[in-house]
C-alpha cells in the first residue's frame, strides 16, 4: 500500500457511521432503558472512531448483557457474573483492544460482586456500564441488591427486606478506584457525555446507569423522570459541563470536583435527588496491564532462552 492510499485508508477508517456499529435488532421490551444505552454507546463508538474490529463488548447474563449482540463489533456474551474477569483476560492479552463491559445489577453486584471489587483494584483500562434497573429482568422479576426496600417481586411478594446497596459507595470504598460516574437512561445527552468521559479516562471507568424496566418495575424511576428538580447535576471544569439546553430543565446543579473522594462518597450516598455526573476521577492510578508489562511482542528466541536458562539449573550432564 502506498503512503497515500494508507493515508486515505486511515481517513476512511476513522470515519464511521452509526450503522457501522449496529448489529442484530434489539429484542428488549418497548421503553426499556437499555435501548437508550445502546444508542449512546453506538454514538460514542462513532464519535470516537473506534475500529469495530478492535472493539470488544463483554457481558454476563441478563437483559442488559444482551447488548453485545446488538453491536457490530466483537462481542463476548459470557456467563452470569463473570463479565469482568473475562474482560480482564482479554485486556491483559490484548491491551490494544477497546474493552467495554455491560453488566446488570444482579450480574455485577450480586453473583459477580467479588469480581467487581477486584476489578476496581486491578484498574485495567476498560469502560464498565452497570445497567441498574433495580431488578432481575431476564429471569422475570426477582429483587436485586439495588432494589429499594419494599420492592415487590416474585421472590419478595410482600416486599423486599433490605435497603438497597449503593454501587457507587461500594466502588468508592475500594482502593485504586479511578473513575466513578452516574448517569440515567432518560437524559441521553448527559448519558453520552458521561460515557465519553468514561471512555477517555485511562483506567477502570465505572458508570452506573439508572435504567428503566417498564416490564417489571414500571414506576421505579417515575418520580425522577417527571420531576427534573429531583435530579442533581454534578458540574465541574474537570467533570461534565451541562449544556445550556439541559441547564434550563435540570436547574438543580452542584459543583463537584471529581478529585475529592470524601465529598464523592457523601454525594454518592444521596438517593434523592439522584446525582448525575462524574463523582470521582483519579488519572494517576496505574493500570494493571501496564504494571504487568502486557502486550509486548515476544520471540521464539526469548522462549528458548528462558527455557534453556532454567533447564541449565536442573541438568545433570553426562560425565
Amino acid at each position, binding site marked *: 500500500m502506498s503512503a497515500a492510499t494508507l493515508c486515505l485508508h486511515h481517513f476512511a477508517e476513522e470515519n464511521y457511521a452509526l450503522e457501522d456499529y449496529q*448489529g442484530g435488532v434489539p429484542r428488549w421490551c418497548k421503553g426499556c432503558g437499555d435501548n437508550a444505552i445502546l444508542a449512546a454507546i453506538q454514538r460514542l463508538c462513532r464519535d470516537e472512531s473506534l475500529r*469495530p*474490529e*478492535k*472493539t*470488544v*463488548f*463483554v457481558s454476563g*447474563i441478563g437483559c442488559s448483557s444482551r447488548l*453485545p*449482540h446488538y*453491536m*457490530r*463489533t*466483537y*462481542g*463476548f*456474551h*459470557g*456467563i452470569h457474573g*463473570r463479565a469482568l*474477569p*473475562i*474482560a*480482564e*483476560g*482479554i*485486556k*491483559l*492479552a*490484548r491491551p*490494544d*483492544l477497546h474493552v467495554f463491559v455491560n453488566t446488570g445489577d444482579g450480574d455485577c453486584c450480586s453473583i459477580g460482586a*467479588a*469480581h467487581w*471489587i*477486584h476489578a476496581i483494584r486491578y484498574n485495567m483500562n476498560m469502560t464498565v456500564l452497570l445497567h441498574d434497573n433495580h431488578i432481575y429482568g431476564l429471569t422475570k422479576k426477582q429483587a436485586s441488591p439495588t432494589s429499594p426496600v419494599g420492592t415487590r417481586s416474585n421472590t419478595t411478594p410482600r416486599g423486599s427486606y433490605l435497603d438497597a446497596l449503593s454501587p457507587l459507595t461500594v466502588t468508592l470504598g475500594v482502593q485504586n478506584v479511578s473513575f466513578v460516574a452516574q448517569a440515567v437512561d432518560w437524559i441521553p445527552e448527559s448519558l453520552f457525555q458521561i460515557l465519553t468521559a468514561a471512555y477517555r479516562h485511562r483506567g477502570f471507568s465505572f458508570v452506573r446507569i439508572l435504567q428503566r424496566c417498564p416490564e417489571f418495575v414500571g414506576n421505579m424511576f417515575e418520580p425522577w423522570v417527571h420531576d427534573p428538580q429531583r435530579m442533581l447535576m454534578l458540574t465541574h471544569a474537570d467533570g461534565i459541563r451541562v449544556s445550556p439546553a439541559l441547564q434550563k430543565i435540570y436547574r438543580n446543579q452542584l459543583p463537584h470536583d471529581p478529585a475529592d473522594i470524601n465529598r464523592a462518597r457523601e454525594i454518592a450516598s444521596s438517593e434523592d435527588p439522584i446525582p448525575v455526573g462524574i463523582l470521582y476521577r483519579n488519572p494517576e492510578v496505574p493500570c494493571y496491564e501496564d504494571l*504487568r*508489562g*502486557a502486550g*509486548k*511482542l*515476544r520471540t*521464539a528466541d*526469548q*522462549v*528458548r*532462552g*528462558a*527455557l*534453556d*536458562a*532454567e*533447564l541449565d539449573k*536442573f*541438568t*545433570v*550432564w*553426562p*560425565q
Partner: protein
Amino acid sequence: MNAVTPLPARASAARTGSTATVAKHLQTLDQHVIEIMSDSGEGAQKCGQSFGSIAARTGNGVWTVEIIPAEIQPPARSVAGASGNRIRIGSHQITNGGDEADIAVAFNEQVLLGRVNAGELKAGCIVLLENMWAEHEDAKIAGQYAETRDRLVAEGYRVYEVPMERECRSLVPDPRKGKNMFVLGMLCNIYSLDMDLARDQIAFIFGKKDAKVISSNVALLEAGWQWAESNLDFKYRVPAVKATVPQVVINGNTAVALGVLASGMDICAMYPITPATSASHYLSDVFERAGGIVHQAEDEIAACAFAIGASYTGRVAVTITSGPGYSLKQEGLGLAVMAEIPLVVVNVQRGGPSTGQPTKVEQGDLLTVMFGSHGDAPKVVMAPGTIEDCFYSMITARRLAETFNMVVVVLSDASLATAQQPFPRPQFSTEWLAPPVDQNPVPDGAKPYDWDPVTGLSRRFVPGQPNGMHTLTGLAHDRNSRVAYDPEINEQGMRAQHEARHAAEDSHAAASVRRPRGRTARGWLGRHQGRHRRGRGATARRRSPRLLHAPDVPATDAARHR
C-alpha cells in the same frame, strides 16, 4: 579404634572416631527405597534430594517423593511432623515411589514412628536412628526413645543406632544443621556411590555460599561415609547405566511450569491451592523472562474466566488448580466448551472430597473432569504418568486445545507434583509454539462457527480481524453465532463439539509433540483406563500408561457419531 578402609580419592581429613570395623555384606540390588526424615528445618529434604541427584548422575533410575508435614510449624519430635524425602533408586527407569521403604533414616524416633504407623516401612526394614535422645536430659524424651527403639526391634526392624549428633559435633558448631550431610555420606557409602559426585553436589547446592561452608559440609559428608564404612555390616550396589545424554532432575510441578513456558502459552491465571501452587510459584519466577504473565486472580472462578478471556483473543491460556478449585471452575469450563474457546486446565489432584487431605495424593478427579460441568460438555483429558510427561503434556495440551478449539485438562497429582525423576533434557523446538495470532481480514461470507461436517471444526475469528466481528455466546447458537432457540440448532452445535473431540482422538499423531528418541505421545490408548491407586490417599503404584482421555458422553447422540 581406627577406621581401616581408606577413604576414596580427594578425601583429605578422614575422621576416625568410630569404634569398630565390621565385616561387610555387599548385595547387588535391582531397586531400593530409602526414606530420610527429620523435624522440619533439619535438612532431611536437602539430604534426600542431593542423594537422588547423585544417584541420577550415576545413571540410576530415580524417583524422589517429598514427605511434608501438613502443618506449617509442626511441633518438634512429633508423629505428624515428619519432613523429608523418600527416594527410590533402581537399575532401570523408576516411575513411582514404590510401596514401602527398605531403609529409613530418622533424626528422631517420633518422626520415624509416624511413618511406621502409616505403614510406609517394609517389614524388617533397616532403620538408621539418631541415638542422642537415649541420654536426653528430659527423662520423658529418653523414655520415648527407648520405648520406640525397643518396640521396633521387637517388631523385627533392623535398628542401627547412629550417633549423628556426636559425630558431627567436632566438625560444626551446630550439628543440628550438619547432620543431613553426614547422613548423605552414610548413604553414599551404603549404596557405593562415587564420592566425587557427592562432593560436586555439595559444591552445587552451596555454590552461592563461601568456600568454608562447602568445605565444612564436605567434611560432614566424609565423616558420614567413614562412620558407615566402619560401623555398618551391609553395603549395596544398584548397578547403573551411565546416561549418555544430559538429564534434568525436576519435580512434576516444575515440569508443568516449564512445559507451559516451552509450549508458547503466555498467560497463566491461577489462585493458590495446595498441591498445585508450587507450579505457579515457579512460573511466577521464570515466566516473565519468556514474556509470559502469571495472574493471581481473586478466586478460581475468576482465574478460569480470565484465562477464557485471554484465550478468546487468539491464544491458548492456562489455569492451574487442584480439586476444590476445579469444582469451582466447572461452570466456566462449560462456557469454554460451548463457545469453543481453547483452554488448558491443570488439575493437580489431592485427597478429597472437599478440603480432604491437601498434601496427600489421590487420583479421584477423573470422572469429575469428564462429567462435572452440567450438560454434555466434552473435554479432552490427559494424565501424565511421569515427570517427563508433565513437561510434554503441556505442549501437547496447548496444541490440541488450539487445533480442536477444545478444553484440555491435564490431570496431575500430589505425587507427581513433588516427585523428582531424571529425564532427558528437552531440546526446544519452535514447533512447540503457536503461530502468531491471526489479524488478517476474514473473507466475506465466512461464518464464525462454520463447523466442518466431518471434523466438527471451525476456524476461529479473533478480535482485531476486520470483517470477523460477531458475538460469542454461551447460549446455544448457530453457525453465525446467533442465539438459537431451536433445539435442532443446538443439536448441530453439540454434534460439532463431539465430532471435534473424536477428531482430536483420531488425529493424535498430527497433534502430538515430537519427542526425543522418536516417541510420540504414548498411551493414547483409549478411554477409561484410569490409573490405579492404592486405597485412598496412598501413593500411586502404577503409573502407566499415560492416557489421553476424551470422555464419552451419555447421550445416544454421541454413540451415533462414532
